[in-house]
């Protein structure tokens, strides 16, 4: 499994996959002109990646999204659904969602995704 890295821009998050810890992290605000175009390669990559993870092997998704527009939210939901499918096939996945404690809207956003996704899901305040 190879490392994956996309640098953050003003309107797109940093995407980083660490093959040693099997952690995929998406960090930063996201409101590009076309979110589907931005996230499509990542979603395709995930399809190929998930089959390589062995059953029972722990994998983590770390999210820290201070602001996401609705089309990016839709892409994040698509990513979470990929992980839901993987869990159904016996993979072991944990989602850690980091948020700014001073911003209740960020917490609400995290809580909603937790409610909408059927995954082991931790909501953690940033330090």
């Amino acid at each position, binding site marked *: 499994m190879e490392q994956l890295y996309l640098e953050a821009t003003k309107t797109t998050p940093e995407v980083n996959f660490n093959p040693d810890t099997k952690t995929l992290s998406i960090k930063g605000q996201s409101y590009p*002109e*076309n979110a589907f175009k931005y996230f499509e390669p990542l979603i395709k990559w995930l399809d190929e990646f998930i089959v390589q993870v062995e059953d029972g092997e722990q994998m983590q998704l770390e999210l820290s999204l201070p*602001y996401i527009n609705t089309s990016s939210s839709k892409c994040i939901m698509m990513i979470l659904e990929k992980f839901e499918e993987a869990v159904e096939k016996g993979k072991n996945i944990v989602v850690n969602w980091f948020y700014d404690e*001073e911003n209740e*809207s960020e917490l609400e956003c995290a809580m909603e995704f937790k409610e909408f996704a059927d995954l082991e899901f931790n909501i953690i305040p940033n330090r």
Partner: protein
Amino acid sequence: MNKRLIEIQKMLGDSHILISFSGRFSQGIIQELGEAIKEHMKNEDNPKNKIYNVFSIFIEQTQNINNYFAIKKNDIINEEITSSAIVCIGKSKEDYFIWSGNLVNNSDVHPLNEQLNLIRSLNKDELKKLYKEQLKKDIQPGQNGAGMGLIDIARKSSLPIEYSFEERDKSFTFYELKAIV
């Protein structure tokens, strides 16, 4: 000069407008205006969630307009539509408002009006339900936006959204949308 700048300034002040942009906007302009409003609200010591809501609504409104223009990009009269956009952010007492307008084809008014009427009639729980449905819906090839912008705007507004349509001629109608936080 048939209108002096000081008169325009007074009009903006009377309308409680802080930032306004009129004309063709791009993703770059949306970003810069978005950052400007965030900075302004931070300096005024607004709570983070209020800044977040104003910024979110601003982004959804302007990206909605841009997505609409993208759909119309092959129309011959496109130039007229794309240069018709205006967005204002203002503050009246303690409330911020995000107020935008643009021309739409007359044939697009009916479905848009129906959608706005529906969204305006829903309470926050019903809006959440509709939001979830849209979030989980499969995207269509070539789809630009998620079709969730207006729902999100209504969810983040502290008062019901306001909108109006004014027919300009046999082709176009000026559509306005105002959200208050």
